[in-house]
């Protein structure tokens, strides 16, 4: 795997143009760019409120070369279900419908509609780019915010007190045909997952960790590095789940400690040694639980 060159695996053709409105170092446009490379031009994007409502560009401009429907916060999966139904009833079954939502639109306000669509096994790909808080409104906590993190609504000395919601397990519990995590630091893995998802019918879910320099209080140029450290420290394992049953790791590293990952982000700067140890223990415990769930066929890197 490590012998492969990324330039051989990632197509050059883009469906996203320059001139988007993301902040410097934002992982969200990179995630979109990679996913669209895998989805191709016969894709309709449904976008509930998120940073991407801005990144896509104001009317009459668009940084995407596929159709986009911007919609209200709670409605990504429901609106996409309607688009799907219209395409199907008119025989346009080869056009893919993709929801592109942030963590707020997925973990919180959009969860009910997402659960409904997943339970009906609607034929769509739902992508959540997760920057772990409401970044577009100025870094308020969401249920994707990790324990111990500073946000503007979990100020120090009372940082986030709840663990991050396990959205992948929630989706897997709907027994949808395909659910996976992905990272902008692992584009080959991400693209392989998009292609697998593209080939399957029914609800597919892709959870992409997307570092946010202003929200994480990290350096612009460290986004890829942080995304990689999240995987290497096993905070954000890269895996896929078929039919809610067959769990498989797609990238497996020897474990790195969580502390360097945390210490490079201002949102964790206040954490004491004890609190860092608590996070490490939690990551270890969750990894143990995951290992009991995963099948063989783990890819060693």
């Amino acid at each position, binding site marked *: 795997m490590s012998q492969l060159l990324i330039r051989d695996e990632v197509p050059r053709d883009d469906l996203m143009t320059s001139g988007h409105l993301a902040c410097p170092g934002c992982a969200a446009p990179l995630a979109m760019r990679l996913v669209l490379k895998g989805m191709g*031009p*016969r*894709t*309709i994007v*449904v976008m509930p409120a998120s940073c991407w*409502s*801005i990144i*896509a*560009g*104001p*009317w*009459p*401009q*668009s940084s*995407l*070369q*596929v*159709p*986009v*429907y*911007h*919609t*209200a916060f*709670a*409605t990504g*999966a*429901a*609106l*996409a*279900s*309607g*688009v*799907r*139904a*219209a*395409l*199907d*009833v*008119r025989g346009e079954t080869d*056009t893919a419908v993709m929801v592109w939502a942030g963590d707020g639109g997925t973990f919180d306000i959009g969860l*009910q*509609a997402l*659960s*409904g669509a997943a*339970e*009906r096994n609607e034929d769509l790909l739902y992508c959540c780019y997760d920057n772990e808080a409401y970044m577009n409104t100025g870094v308020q906590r969401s249920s994707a915010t990790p324990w111990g993190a500073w946000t503007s609504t979990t100020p120090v000395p009372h940082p986030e007190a709840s663990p991050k919601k396990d959205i992948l397990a929630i989706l897997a519990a709907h027994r949808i045909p395909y659910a996976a995590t992905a990272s902008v630091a692992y584009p080959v893995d991400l693209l392989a997952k998009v292609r697998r998802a593209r080939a399957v019918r029914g609800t597919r879910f892709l959870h992409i960790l997307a570092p946010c320099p202003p929200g994480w209080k990290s350096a612009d140029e460290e986004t890829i590095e942080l995304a990689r450290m999240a995987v290497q420290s096993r905070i954000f394992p890269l895996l896929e789940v078929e039919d809610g049953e067959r769990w498989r790791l797609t990238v497996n590293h020897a474990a790195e400690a969580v502390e360097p990952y945390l210490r490079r982000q201002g949102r964790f700067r206040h954490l004491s040694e004890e609190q860092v140890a608590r996070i490490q223990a939690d990551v270890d415990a969750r990894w143990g639980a995951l290992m009991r769930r995963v099948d063989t066929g783990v890819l060693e890197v």
Partner: protein
Amino acid sequence: MRQVIVGNHAVSWGARLARVEVISAYPITPQTQVVEKLSEMCANGTLAARFIKVESEHSAMAACVGASAAGARAFTATSSHGLVFMHEMLHWAAGGRHPIVMANVNRALGPGWNIWTDQNDSLSQRDTGWVQLYCETNQEVLDTAIQAFKLAEAVDLPVMLVLDAFYLSHTAEPVDIPDQEMVDRFLPPRTARLKLDVNEPRAFGALVRPDSYMEMRWLQQEAMREVPHVLERIEADWLRMFGRRYGAIEGYRTEDAELLLVTSGTVTSTARFVVDRRRDEGEAIGLVKVKMFRPFPTAGLRRLLAGVARVAVLDRNVSPGHGGIFAEETRSALYDLPSGDRPEVYGYVLGLGGRDVTPSVIDEVIDRTRQCAQPEREDVWVGVNP
């Protein structure tokens, strides 16, 4: 084909004859029969539509918006809490100019829980940008359901068809069900002017800055302005093909009237009965039925009410802190008539939460209007026991 059917099934038949392509709905009393019947039609193949059984009304309207944006003819039905739960997406449907048709069975809002009729659910959606058409009979419900698609698609605005809980929804009446071939001639398949299309990619609903947002709302207002004219043409076609016509507003026995009632929904039928009896007794009385609440039929209402001494507006709704909503709108429509032509407008709030509006209630309204030289400062609540 003449059949005895309830109002809810008249809606289902209307949607079926309009050949809706996508239905998305959530159950709520007293609307549920509408979508039960439609599920049956989809299941037995008499209707070739996709039925999305969503997990909420908010999602029902979102799915209709998605389907409509992708070019399909989309339909839903709801009631009461379901309608108010959709509120955000009602704005989205109208602002996005999606010609969705929805049936709303008028039902009171909680708390306390009440499944019976009043108009506060639909009237509290007044400013969402939907055309609203209130029906009086099951035949009107069926005819209006089909016409609503033609209207919506002509002006790219969503249309809400409104019928009273139980008095229409669950009451069976003989209804002429039009021939499918004739309906097909009246209403061809939808061709969207713009839609989500991979061959011609566009972004819908993107960020709009202050320099263009107002123009978008202006175009919406322009489309609303077209509605009365388009509806008139549609009704003329319908009359020619099916022999029936209703009008955005209808004057009934208005000739030389000294007092006119303003009504909507099934209260109209009861009021017709009272007007007939009183006319027989020699009283110069009539009524004006308002079918179209948005856009408000200001011109027609002024034509019918100008020069009449007194107007009594019957409101099965209330805007708390103000009064009856049709009364408000009527006063506003008549305000700048020359003072000699401007009627005194008497407002009556009645029948909330399904309380019966019987002929004797309407008699009480008429007698009180006759007895008081001037309207009260506030609309009168009829039959309240404080």
